């Protein structure tokens, strides 16, 4: 009886073992089959009525759109400048031209437009024969002050980053007139002592960077 029991229990145990062995083998064979490199798993394919076309939204895009404009008005509230702007080029000796009226400001038409990448160059008179002109107080413009260019509804706002005075022959012309990836304005006027023949000895250059909105 006892032996039978033992025997029965052995049979049961061996059946369990067989199940485990068979189960393991089945699993191993199945998993080996699933991983077999010569029989890759194939995704069921869906039928498309139309060939798949990349829409414009799916193409990797880069936008170069900018809002730039030819400025018609310059505002510098901290030194009470509210001037109309005229486009200027170069005079017959290759200098940037100045506006026809001492109360106006000249925008260099070979440079950048307001809001655009590049140098937006603006010239204004320090004085005329009788006294102060539009940029008479430019040297008092504090760093961080706001300078605004406008044209009808369009506005580009800049922040003053430097106010520098140079001898005429040392003005950094490349920084002012050459192409740049910066978006900045350069305000230029006269400064320093005046000579009857040579004119003003120095130039004041105020640089302001576009405040991106």
């Amino acid at each position, binding site marked *: 009886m006892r032996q039978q029991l033992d025997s029965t229990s052995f049979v049961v145990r061996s059946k369990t073992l067989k199940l485990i062995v068979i189960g393991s083998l089945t699993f191993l064979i199945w998993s080996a089959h699933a991983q077999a490199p010569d029989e890759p798993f194939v995704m069921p394919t869906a039928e498309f009525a139309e060939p798949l076309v*990349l829409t*414009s939204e799916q*193409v*990797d*895009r*880069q*936008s*170069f*759109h*900018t809002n*730039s404009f030819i400025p018609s008005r310059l505002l510098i509230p901290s030194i009470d400048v509210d001037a109309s702007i005229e486009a200027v080029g*170069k*005079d017959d*000796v*290759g*200098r*940037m*031209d*100045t506006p026809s009226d001492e109360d106006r400001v000249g925008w*260099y038409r*070979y*440079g*950048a*437009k307001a809001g655009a*990448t*590049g*140098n937006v160059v603006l*010239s*204004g*008179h*320090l*004085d*005329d*024969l*009788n*006294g*102060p*002109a539009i940029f008479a107080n430019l040297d008092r413009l504090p760093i961080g002050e706001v300078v605004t260019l406008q044209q009808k509804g369009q506005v580009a706002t800049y922040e003053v980053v430097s106010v520098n005075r140079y001898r*005429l022959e040392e*003005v*950094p*012309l*490349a*920084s*002012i*007139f*050459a*192409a*740049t*990836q*910066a978006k900045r304005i350069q305000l*230029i*006027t*006269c400064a320093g*002592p*005046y000579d*009857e023949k040579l*004119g*003003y000895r120095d*130039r004041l250059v105020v640089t302001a960077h576009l405040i991106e909105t």
Partner: protein
Amino acid sequence: MKKLMSLLGTLALAFAFVLPVSADGHENAMVRVLHASPDAPAVDVYVDGEVAVEGAEFKDLTDYLTLPAGDYNVEIKPAGDAETVVVAADLSIEAGKFYTAAAIGQLESIEIAAMEDDANFEEGKSKVRVAHFAPDAPAVDVAPKGGDPLFSNLEFKAVSDYGTLDAGTYDLEVRPAGATDVVKALDGVALEGGMNYTAFAIGLLEGEPAFEVLLAADGGEMAMAPETGEGGLAQTASMNWLFAAAVVGAAAAGFYVFRRQKQDA
């Protein structure tokens, strides 16, 4: 327009077909530097041993630097590490001309590519070229959206010739050479009349920093500083001095007369 030049290594820069636009009649040239090596660190640029640019990172294009015409040795070093030269090249620059020197390629094979920038402008027209500085990108075409290529079969390191376009805003596409699929769509590329541009294709198609196009205006219509004063303030100032002198003189005379009268009394 086929690629015309891929100027590398020796950087012999001698092109006579661009009229020099001299800033001020002086013997200066203008040079700017582009960092287009996608895996290189921030760098300092040395010109004849002197630091000229500090801390330029990938995608940075410096302003033009003014240098007297002549021969220079340009060295690129990791930012703040004056001892290590990443790559160096000799550069010859001519008065009145503009140049771009670009550090290109992966760091392990970094090179300096130098090119002359066209600073001869045409009213109402834009002159444009393409520089392929994306090391893992195939040869490419650049075309108007859906149109025929303007620039064909540009390989890595190639810089196209300038092509002339009417000023305007263009939607362009970068495509694998000869193919119609689009690697990159460039929307709203605004080309101003009287301006010249280089479109630098930089970055990596596979990985970071990602492939993109850096559009830069070239050269510049240089001018001398404007004459912005007529001396009115200076003359007013001298008039003021005269007036002040007159006042002081009158006061002194008055005081003298007053003293004399007092003494006489």
